[in-house]
């Protein structure tokens, strides 16, 4: 029970206790700042090395700044055609895989959390299994499957594989949002005459959006990042991680760092723009922001 009395404290200890209470109030924000810095360190390194002059090394990164800095790799950022192709392929793949797996996964999550049906526990098990499987096993076993059924290796086989491993993650994330979801809002909508479909579209889905977005983000990141499963099932198609791995063994072109930095900057910018738009919309609709705890 916190004491409500505030007896006068000696002025001497006023300053430290002020600092202390400032710390306590802003502790979380300071911590968030540190965490953010930690998360950004490798990005910083990547950005720095995108300026490193590596001409002594056949324009390949040596991760040592021997020759000083240069802007030339930024000027010729798209000079490595294989790299560009790989990056584009990765994005196309990730976009499609995210879309499809988010839809399928959200549907599954809804089914699993909100309905009791025969086969529910088996479905849960089915979901957990891909996440517990070493990627190399998934990759190799999928390859055998594709070959036996004559599915050509390339973008298609990659897409199938990516959707497969994304579904489980989407379900888990959406599910953790669905559990304990306050159904009374939906009941209210039904009471007001909305059909189940309308309730779903206008009440449930918007409320679910953060969870679905989080799941889609995760799926996208998983797909862009995937290396092992892709390596087995790519045929001659190259995704970005596969390109980097191959290049790493013999020297990464500096353009890789340049493009990675560009990508990061673009992502941040895009998000800022989206959020700024959202803020404008909010202001125009004069929605009151929720109170802080």
């Amino acid at each position, binding site marked *: 029970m916190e004491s409500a009395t505030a007896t006068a404290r000696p002025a001497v200890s006023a300053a430290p206790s002020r600092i202390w209470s400032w710390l306590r109030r802003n502790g979380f924000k300071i911590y968030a700042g540190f965490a953010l810095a930690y998360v950004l360190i*490798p990005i910083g390194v990547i950005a720095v090395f995108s300026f490193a002059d590596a001409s002594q090394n056949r324009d390949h990164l040596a991760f040592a700044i021997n020759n000083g800095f240069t802007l030339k790799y930024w000027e010729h950022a798209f000079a490595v055609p294989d790299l560009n192709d790989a990056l584009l392929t990765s994005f196309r793949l990730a976009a499609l895989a995210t879309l499809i797996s988010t839809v399928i996964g959200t549907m599954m999550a809804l089914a699993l959390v909100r309905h009791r049906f025969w086969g529910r526990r088996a479905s849960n098990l089915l979901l957990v*299994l891909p996440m517990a499987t070493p990627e190399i096993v998934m990759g190799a076993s999928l390859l055998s499957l594709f070959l036996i059924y004559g599915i050509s290796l390339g973008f298609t086989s990659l897409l199938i594989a990516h959707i497969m491993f994304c579904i489980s993650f989407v379900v888990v994330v959406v599910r*953790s949002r669905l559990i304990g979801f306050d159904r009374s809002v939906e009941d209210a909508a039904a009471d007001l005459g909305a059909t189940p479909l309308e309730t779903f579209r206008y009440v449930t889905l918007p409320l679910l959006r953060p969870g679905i977005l989080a799941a889609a983000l995760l799926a996208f990141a998983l797909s862009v990042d995937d290396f092992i499963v892709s390596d087995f099932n790519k045929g001659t198609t190259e995704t970005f991680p596969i390109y980097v791995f191959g290049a790493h063994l013999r020297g990464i072109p500096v353009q890789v760092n340049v493009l990675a930095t560009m990508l990061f900057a673009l992502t941040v910018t895009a998000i800022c723009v989206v959020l700024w738009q959202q803020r404008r919309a909010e202001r125009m609709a004069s929605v009151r922001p929720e109170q802080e*705890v």
Partner: protein
Amino acid sequence: MGDQKRSFRRRLIPYGLLAPGAIWLVVFFIVPMYFMGEMSLRTGVPNTPEGFTFNWEFANYSDALSGRGDQIVRTFFYAGTATIIALLIAYPLAYAIALKVNPRWRLPLLFAVIAPFFTTYLIRTIAWETILADDSPIVDLLKTLQIIPEDGRLLATSGAVIAGLTYNFLPFMILPIYASIERIDTSLIEAGKDLYASSRQAFLRVTLPLTMPGVVAGVLLTFIPASGDYVNAEFLGGANNAMIGNRIQSTYLEQSDYPKAAALSFLMMATVLALVFIYIRFAGTEAFVGSEEEAR
């Protein structure tokens, strides 16, 4: 009559929702797994024209395990430690973003934390390889501060591998926890405080239990792939830091001993699944499979 039809259709809904995903997983996961299983029971010598023939060779499983004990313990130690550290980092961070900052900064901050993970896994790990290199400024600083000995190193150690795992799987931990903290009805916390709970009690008795589903999801989403990872060990680890994933990869791709590789993979999957089930029992099945009251 119309009632019956509607109720029949209603009962079909879950199956309709479930079908695309379930079919996809069966065809593209279960079937290949069956092939794997069949392969794990074959015998033969690698790289010979005769190949491998099916022989109910359960010895592959005991062979795969023999001498692997150290590595298995090491793998789960690395993955477990990384998961715990990630949890310790992610929970306060998610809490801060969801509840402690101005709501207009929430999504930006969240994206700011996740955005670095849109650069490739490999590049991030390679960046850490640079940061932790023996003559990098950071290592020099730590040596000056006497935190590590003069002839010590950060790279090629188990610490580096764990640090890499933690860093790389952080978003898997943050996102589910954030999702579940964010949807807490804050009035519940306020109610707790109105009932004379201190901030700490409010947290332990109200917030934490309500966010358990997110924590469980985060822990699982981190621990499981971390156990099977081999990229971090390969880039950041030394000769003595190999994880089970490295062994599976080399049995598969270097030795071409597919039956043993398949057996080892299944063993690994089984162990992880067992750990997962134990954890779920401990954390409560409702957190994972959804409570029974959810369904109407």
